[in-house]
């Protein structure tokens, strides 16, 4: 299937075409780029939602229940579930389908698992591309689920319109959230597993943290949920809808859209620049010598980095001629 056939099939609601288009976008092939370019004008109609939080807080279960709640409202749902890649083999076991079994037979749901790729990078680029494809395919709601562990994962969540931070009672989780910079990016907070002891304390702590954050037009709600029993899901859907309405209706909507677009362009440029620079650095042939110099403490690492950057600039200048 070439790019134009894939675009046609995605827009026609063909699930196999959608699945293959996602593969191309994820792998960043030339076909994938052409597909994204062709589909982008058709995006922006659905709600895009990022769900993030530490490992074990119940994100997959919550996403599964959220999808069901959205389905009950008659909305179609696309899900991108990101699991970590092994830093050693770059392989991955993607197990999110286990907790979303009951969605598999629903023609109004499309669930795609994605590996985070670890050091290979480019997760945010790839995931936001997959979200765009699902959005263009006409899904009313597109949900991205990631472990909020690193910069890349946080960027994935922020590439969506509404970011939901999931925590659970106990364990100083709020400090971890602050460290990861998640507090600043969340528009909705959920204390999941709130049937456990300490739920009210967790809510109070989050409220305390929000109180010291800079005031914004949107007030971040803090909800309690027990995802595995389906409790708190209607409230979550309502909170997300409220935020979406805020985005579309507020007088700042145009400004927020511009800021979002700028953040996306900068983030994609940074990722591409980093990849390209590191490739050029690897090809420059000077890295091994610099490594030796620094390891022997004859040169300091900052000077070595500057020298490597010079080599990269040299190869870019050469490529232009």
């Amino acid at each position, binding site marked *: 299937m070439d790019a134009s056939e894939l675009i046609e099939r995605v827009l026609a609601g063909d699930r*196999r075409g959608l699945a*293959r288009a996602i593969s191309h976008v994820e792998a960043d092939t030339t076909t994938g780029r052409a597909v994204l370019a062709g589909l982008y004008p058709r995006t922006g109609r659905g709600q895009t939602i990022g769900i993030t939080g530490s490992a074990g807080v119940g994100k997959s279960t919550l996403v599964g229940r959220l999808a069901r709640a959205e389905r009950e409202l008659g909305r179609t749902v696309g899900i991108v579930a990101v699991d970590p890649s092994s830093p050693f083999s770059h*392989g991955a076991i*993607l*197990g999110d389908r286990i907790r979303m079994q009951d969605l598999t*037979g629903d023609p109004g749901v499309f669930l795609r698992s994605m590996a985070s790729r670890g050091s290979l990078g480019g997760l945010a680029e790839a995931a936001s591309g997959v979200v765009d494809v699902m959005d263009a395919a006409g899904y009313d709601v597109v949900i991205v689920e990631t472990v909020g562990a690193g910069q890349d994962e946080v960027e994935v969540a922020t590439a969506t319109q509404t970011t939901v931070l999931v925590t659970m009672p106990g364990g100083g989780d709020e400090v971890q959230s602050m460290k990861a910079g998640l507090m600043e990016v969340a528009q909705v907070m959920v204390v999941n597993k709130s049937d456990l002891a300490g739920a009210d304390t967790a809510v109070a702590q989050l409220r305390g943290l929000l109180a010291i954050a800079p005031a914004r037009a949107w007030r971040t709600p803090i909800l309690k949920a027990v995802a595995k029993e389906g409790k708190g899901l209607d409230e979550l859907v309502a909170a997300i809808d409220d935020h979406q309405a805020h985005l579309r209706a507020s007088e700042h909507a145009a400004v927020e859209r511009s800021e979002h677009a700028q953040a996306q362009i900068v983030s994609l440029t940074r990722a591409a620049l980093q990849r390209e620079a590191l490739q050029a650095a690897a090809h420059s042939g000077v890295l091994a010598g610099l490594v030796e110099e620094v390891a022997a403490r004859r040169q300091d690492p900052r000077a070595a980095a500057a020298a490597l950057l010079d080599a990269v600039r040299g190869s870019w200048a050469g490529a232009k001629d």
Partner: protein
Amino acid sequence: MAEATAEARSIRVLIAKPGLDGHDRGAKVVARALRDAGMEVIYTGIRQTPDMIAEAALQEDVQVIGLSILSGAHLELFPRVVVALKQRGVDDVLLFCGGIIPQADIPAIQELGFDGVFGPGSSTEDIIAFVREHAPSYAA
């Protein structure tokens, strides 16, 4: 931007257990071995219907499907998986299976399109080599 590539993805494999037996140790061992070999393994868990397996294969756009079964219902369930895949137009995947499959049933299973049959005692190295050698690549 950096050069786009024609083909730059790991092999994606779906490991699934059709039917009602709940013993997934073998499936997990294979899933883990394939991951350690650098593949992306989608694991769906136990008690999958043929339609669930085919639908997962479609949505995940896998190149390879491995089925594990110990209940003895393979001659009943495997053909239904193959039909469910065909119904969805998923016609370019590599199929293999493992579990308790009597020697006498192997020809029938190969006839269905399962090119690899790995019973008890199979080495994970053999399975990895089989998948690497036979997994179809995507034409860009």
